[in-house]
């Protein structure tokens, strides 16, 4: 029996860019996933687009927080000491 009837409705690029997040989140239904990957195989622009979305996520993840200013560090240490003093003064409700 021949199973060559690829009943594939081809995706166009404008649809493909909307599937990227679902694809990366592994939330595309199997059929859509296949169609998306088939589209990528023949479309360098959408392949580049997917790479850029992956890079965007990676770059966002590399952002490190700015250092706290010395003033803010002092404020937070004061906050902590205040709590520590209060905490020592009265029994904790959690026991």
């Amino acid at each position, binding site marked *: 029996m021949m199973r060559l009837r690829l009943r594939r409705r081809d995706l*166009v*690029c*404008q*649809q493909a*860019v*909307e599937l*990227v*997040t*679902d694809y990366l*989140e592994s*939330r595309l239904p199997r059929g859509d996933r296949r169609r998306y990957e088939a589209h990528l195989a023949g479309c360098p*622009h*959408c392949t*580049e*687009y997917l*790479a*850029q*979305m992956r*890079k*965007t*996520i990676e*770059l*966002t*993840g*590399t*952002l*490190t*927080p*700015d*250092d*706290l200013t010395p003033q803010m*560090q002092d*404020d*937070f*240490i004061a*906050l*902590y*000491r205040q*709590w*520590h003093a209060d*905490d020592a003064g009265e029994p*904790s*409700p*959690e026991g």
Partner: protein
Amino acid sequence: MDSGTDAQLLAALRAGDERAFVTMVQRHHAAMLRLASSFVPNVAVAEEVVQDTWVGVLRGIGGFEGRSSFRTWLFRILINRARTAGARERRTIAVGDTEAVSDTEAAVSASRFDGSGSWLSPPEQWIEEAENRLEAGKLADFLRTAIDDLPDRQRQVVTLRDLEGLTSGEVCSVLEISESNQRVLLHRGRSRLRQAIETGIGRPS
């Protein structure tokens, strides 16, 4: 200064190590400030919310048993306080799923496709240039600004997922939104960031 997991820092904190507290504050400060800012009208109030959150964390730390991740717990406290402060400051903001996420915003402007939906103006190459700028320390500020420019709800989701590294389930729990809305907001936010980078540093291929 940067070493230690949240769990290790938490243990040190309970043991009375104030440097552990400062390390922990520093680690989450930018994301907390960014999130708080989406609920309240100005930075001063957002900073109050962040401080207030840490007071809540210290008070509740004895009762925190690690059933949820520390981050989930931390950001839940933050969001609760930010909402309260936002209401007090009379800022009307969309929270939770009370406002439907409309499905009209395109990841890429329709003008960049032809009538059949194929690229007319394909993505400009920028990955290599972005890496160069990252190494030169010239990308971070640009990216922070782009994140700050996102619409509130997109910024909330992108901050928690991609900056703080929460799972989608944790984000839904913290923001009280459905999984599908979380994904739509994430998609929009990431798409806007990609476009911002392309516009900012891309070159025609």
